[in-house]
């Protein structure tokens, strides 16, 4: 009971609801949902960093790394979703672990930009690798799930369920983690690193842990995206504006609640989809305008709408 708070209960209800919805949802909606889960996972990592006082303008690095790691395994004949997603997640995590030793020394805008520099190096490497299709990327075949090889609409249904389960575990895990001493140290490091050091813990170590975590979930999101879209390419996976979108989603969501990142990602996809449909010439205008509106009028993100709603109820 100790771990069962309202967020865990809420997440569990949504989880069960979505598992059922999976079988009734319109295909395009499921696809948007799948992308929202993938991007939301990255935003979840950014949320953890943000709570630590850091923002990365380069998490497409881990997103792209995870996506390409998973996709490259399919090139040598591995197609199991569990293996691919695990590999994508882990490889991004390992990369974050090593780069973390350098990045944990940086704060504020330097941290943000150094991440961007690394992500652009990955972008450059992919563009220069003709074997991997350069900017065209390459296709990722439909995955299997522990021997089960779905076809037609079942592909997306199964993948959605698969993603949903892992996302649920990760999200609840993050929520519980944030309540542990190490998790709460996010706040401590953001508020006052000097005090943390003088209480006997290394602020850099705290940051490193969060950074590796953010790398892991970004890799997870990337691997899922590769499987969902069936294609990897550097412009959708590793370019700087992709990183910008992740920060966009984080701001849209607000950092109040772990579940908010997925709602934020979903809203982001909807805005973009409808802007594309109704204003194909000025969809960037609408996207930028919405972001500005959120920043100006909903400074704590979409989650604050829920909080307000609840306050007025209570």
């Amino acid at each position: 009971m100790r771990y069962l708070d309202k967020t865990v209960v809420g997440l569990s209800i949504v989880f069960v609801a979505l598992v059922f919805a999976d079988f009734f949802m319109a295909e395009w909606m499921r696809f948007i949902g799948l992308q929202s889960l993938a991007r939301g996972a990255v935003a979840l990592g950014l949320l953890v960093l943000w709570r630590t006082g850091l923002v990365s303008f380069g998490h497409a690095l881990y997103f792209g790394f995870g996506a390409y790691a998973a996709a490259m395994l399919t090139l040598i004949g591995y197609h199991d979703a569990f293996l691919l997603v695990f590999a994508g997640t882990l490889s991004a995590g390992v990369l974050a672990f090593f780069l973390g030793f350098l990045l944990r020394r940086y704060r504020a805008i330097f941290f943000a930009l150094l991440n961007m520099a690394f992500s652009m190096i990955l972008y450059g490497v992919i563009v220069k690798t003709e074997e991997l299709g350069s900017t065209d990327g390459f296709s990722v075949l439909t995955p299997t799930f522990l021997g089960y090889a779905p076809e037609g609409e079942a592909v997306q249904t199964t993948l959605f369920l698969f993603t949903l389960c892992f996302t649920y575990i990760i999200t609840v895990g993050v929520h519980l983690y944030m309540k542990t001493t190490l998790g709460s140290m996010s706040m401590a490091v953001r508020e006052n690193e000097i005090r943390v050091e003088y209480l006997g813990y290394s602020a850099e170590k705290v940051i490193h842990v969060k950074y590796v975590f953010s790398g892991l979930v970004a890799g997870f999101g990337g691997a899922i995206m590769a499987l969902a879209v069936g294609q990897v390419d550097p412009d959708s996976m590793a370019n700087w504006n992709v990183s910008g979108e992740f920060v966009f989603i984080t701001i849209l969501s607000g950092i109040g609640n772990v579940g908010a990142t997925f709602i934020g990602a979903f809203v982001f996809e909807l805005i973009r989809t409808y802007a594309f449909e109704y204003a194909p010439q000025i969809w960037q205008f609408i996207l930028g305008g919405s972001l500005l509106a959120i920043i100006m009028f909903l400074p704590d993100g979409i989650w604050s709408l829920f909080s307000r709603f609840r306050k007025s109820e209570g």
Partner: protein
Amino acid sequence: MQELIVILVDGLVFSSYLFMVAVGLTVIFGVMKILNVTHGSFYAFGAYMSATLIGAYYETDWPEFGGFLAIFAAALIIGVFFGIVLERGLLRFLYHRDEHIIVLATFAMFLVLEDVLMMIWGTDPYYAYEPMALLGIVDIAELTFDVYSLTLIGLAAIVGLGLWLGLTKTKWGKLLLAVIFDREISQAMGINVTVVFTVTFVIGAIMGALGGAYIAPTISVSPGIGVEVIVLAFAVVVIGGMGSIPGAMIGAVLVGVSRAAAVHKFPEIELFVIYAIMALVLAIRPEGLFAPAQARKI
């Protein structure tokens, strides 16, 4: 020997381009601590306005060299207009917010302005090659260069020197330096930080627009030109030390000459040069080559 001279000349031209593209960004960051993504829009609007004015100018039968005035007029018009509108209309509401939020706000504004640009000028490209044709060519180390590109070196030097002198030798510059060092104390000392901010932002915007306006005659002014500039300018500014004008200059030269050497010797690695230098410099000197002074923490 010939190759070496050519690498140097090419490198300096490209460095000057980088400096012109980055200097506005560093001025704004230095004073306001805002990483201004809208900088890319200033560049693009500057280029479009410049192409439009140059086109209009050469429709008249006024003296040919007057076309250069159109370039500077374009930079002024765009810089002053967008500088004031954005700073007064948007940024001032965000000064109390997290610095990353402000970056995102300027990113959002950049997206908006990209489409505004298309609403005004459409998707067809604009050309304004007359000023470039006017200056002709010159041979250096038995290789032909166009004089216009070489004048970029002079422009960058004048802008860099002017800003540096303005900052260190004038009363206004000293006020700016005070604000840079400590915003609150400056306010307490009676400096009108609001005005300082607006003026700085306008100067930065003019610089961004001037970059685009001056480059316009050498390129095809078409959609998307602002995007490329942003990342490039970020890199230069980060390498040089954010907010430092001499830093931006050294950073630009470092990147420009290295890139020129790469293009001549190992063209395959051209794509990486700038980011590799950025990562390398940051790994060794976290705050860039010229880190600004910091106040004591405890």
